[in-house]
């Protein structure tokens, strides 16, 4: 189970890196469009649409990794003061509710793709991008998010059943103290290194 979780998490991390580099590409694309328009008299005429798709894909493809990193936002003022066992149960409950929401989103995304197939829909840009492409990529990210939730929930439930609530707390508890600080400090450190 743990192996499966790690495998899925690695895949999710890979997708998140793709999402992040996609934003870098997006910045370059817009910059070239500005330069081309201002100095060369050329423009893609589809910047608005294409960068919008890049955003959608970027959001969806990083959802699973963000969950694995425990970075999705919760209000946990009360939860973190509860005794460990109760806290573990609430973590699992929160995850299941998130799962319900994510499953609904995935179903909705799939219906949208399905409808675009029915319409054979294209956008109104000069490129006439078939909407199935960006919407399909977007929906895939949401499905990966659902898969991550299922794997985490199974792993967490097993830990709870086997009487190891602290493991579940580590798996799902919000990243408040160590890891966030570690990351911020790592970033600052990268800056300080000559």
């Amino acid at each position: 189970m743990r192996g499966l979780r790690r495998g899925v998490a690695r895949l999710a991390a890979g997708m998140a890196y793709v999402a992040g580099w996609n934003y870098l590409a997006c910045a370059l694309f817009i910059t070239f469009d500005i330069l081309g328009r201002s100095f060369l008299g050329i423009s893609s005429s589809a910047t608005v649409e294409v960068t919008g798709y890049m955003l959608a894909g970027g959001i969806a493809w990083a959802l699973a990794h963000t969950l694995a990193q425990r970075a999705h936002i919760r209000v946990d003022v009360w939860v973190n003061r509860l005794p460990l066992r109760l806290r573990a149960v609430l973590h699992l409950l929160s995850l299941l509710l998130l799962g319900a929401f994510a499953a609904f989103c995935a179903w909705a995304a799939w219906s949208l793709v399905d409808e675009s197939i029915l319409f054979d829909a294209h956008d109104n840009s000069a490129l006439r991008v078939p909407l199935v492409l960006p919407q399909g990529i977007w929906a895939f990210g949401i499905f990966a998010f659902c898969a991550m939730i299922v794997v985490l929930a199974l792993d967490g439930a097993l830990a709870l059943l086997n009487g190891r609530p602290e493991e579940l707390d580590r798996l799902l508890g919000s990243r408040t103290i160590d890891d966030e600080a570690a990351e911020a400090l790592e970033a600052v450190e990268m800056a300080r290194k000559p």
Partner: protein
Amino acid sequence: QVPASLPAGPKVSVVAVTQPLPTQPQYTRVDIPVLREEVAQRSGGRIEVQLSTHAERNLSGTELVRLVRSGQADIGASTLSTLSGDVPILDMVDLAGLAPEIGAAKRIAEAMLPVVNRDLERFGARLMVIYPFPAQVVFCRTPFASLADLRGRKVRTFGNSLVDLVTALGAQPVSIGFPEVYSALERGVVDCAITGSGSGVAARWPEVTTHISNLPVAWALAGYMVNIAWWNRLDPQVRAFMEGALREISNRQWELGAAATRDGIDCAIGKADACRIHSLAARPMTEVPATEADRTALREILEKTVLPGFVRRCGARCGEVYNQTIAPIAGIRFGG
């Protein structure tokens, strides 16, 4: 007209999502008085229309067919070119350069209504009314005397057929979202922009542009759709009543379209006594009258560039439909 009365019966609640913005005259002068007020009044309160705009519903306008089809709204309205991504044939009704004056635009719209519905009805929606926004005209921040002067300028455009038109004029089409156009014109990110004469005035473009052409390059035709399942389920008396209301809307929107086109230009050029629908520009613009050469150029570009481009996007069948339905009115055939 809206029928004078409706026999008593169970209440009918209708959801309608119509114009892009709640401030547009198409909404305040037609939709609100007819759909919301007259319908409620004359049906004795039996029909109640819950009316809102795209902005209030957080919609961009492209998704209206899907909104109506899914039954979220019983009646939906949007411009045809924004819907053409989902239903390409809708673009045909309002190709750039097709109708030099509003009478032709109306004849084409009426002829096309049954034709586009053959495509739309597959998706569970039916177009009931096609209506115009004020004529699409060119606004520029520097002087120009004819369309030919646009060569080399950056022109903000939307929709495929206008992009084709602008490219054929030797200008550079730029894609910028409507809200950013004002500052783009102000700073010179673009030199010109095309939109409805009244819409440009409403967005305060006269503050950032100096010249406005009076040549309609297109009409931004739009349409009211209904959800077919809902429509067929209606009590026949209610349906007849609503049909009357939609006919009334059609008449008023065409009147408004004709009046608002000239009104938009008059407001832009600071003619206070003729400016009644939109608000008067603080800094009057210069009107650029259309020349015979402009009209000829527009027809030529329609034939050589815009039509072939449209048929390429929409498919060969669209070319045949065009030749059957529109060519006799417009006087230009696809493929010669």
